[in-house]
């Protein structure tokens, strides 16, 4: 099971980071978005090629109001 932002998801192993972003309604050129997989940054230029493994933990983050 791939965890997307802490939740069980129907994202499958082998999907790319780009595919996950489109599931969230985010375009590849979305401003202010960053992705981490299993605690490592996936740079923007790797979103299309990075494929998720079984049990990947994916975090898709953006700007939020804060201190």
């Amino acid at each position, binding site marked *: 099971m791939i965890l997307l932002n802490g939740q069980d998801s129907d994202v499958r192993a082998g999907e790319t980071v780009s595919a996950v972003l489109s599931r969230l309604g985010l375009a590849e050129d979305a401003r*202010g978005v960053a992705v*981490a997989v299993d605690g490592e940054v996936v740079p923007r230029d790797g979103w299309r090629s990075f494929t998720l493994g079984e049990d990947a933990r994916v975090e898709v983050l953006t700007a939020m109001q804060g201190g």
Partner: protein
Amino acid sequence: MSEALRIGGREYRSRLLLGTGGFPSLELLAAAIAASGSELVTVALRRVDPSARGSLVDVLAAAGVELLPNTAGCHTARDAVLTAKLAREAFATDLVKLEVIGDEDTLLPDAPELLRAAEELVDDGFVVLPYTTDDPVLARRLADVGCAAVMPLGSPIGSGMGIRNPYNIALIREAVTVPVVLDAGIGTASDATLAMELGCDAVMAASAVARARDPVRMARAMRAAVEAGRLARTAGRIPRRLYATASTSNEGLPTLSIPT
């Protein structure tokens, strides 16, 4: 006096940094930014919320301000470093307000983790602005590892308690050559003025503005307060004395009472 604030090769005319947390709406945030004159505002990095209305990034871009991503919520050097790297990806900036929290109730920084994270991020090319305690020795250690500024707290985040140890803030000013930005604890305009009078190069206000009854008016007050404090600091205050010093000369004082 009109000299710009310089942090990591950048120049700012405004010496007031604004936090974006706690504003009831993005419209109010935009109005407060305009009223504050701030050129540098903090943002946090959190999970995407597909149901969120309005884009903070768009609002801040329209305001023409530079983003200072923070690592709020991080409790270890490792998490803070990863968050900084994600922020660099998200916002295309090497600036980071480094926060590594050591205690949930006071939100005070965890000194060893903070120093470790600062060192690692500086080595990785970040312009690091660490949120730190009012300890002059820790401030010096942070500057020594290459931080571009230090951000000592006046009192705990969001407490509005002002500057609880003004002597330490003055000592920090003497301990480092990088800019000192008073962060956390500001409750009202006079706190910001005091920070500048103590020699701080800038002040960061967040809750004090966002949670004021009228945030836009308070943003204006903070702007004026920072300018007043900077003016007073550079003007050079008179020394404190226990006894009065007459401001009017006695020379030419007439004798008005009839001698008895």
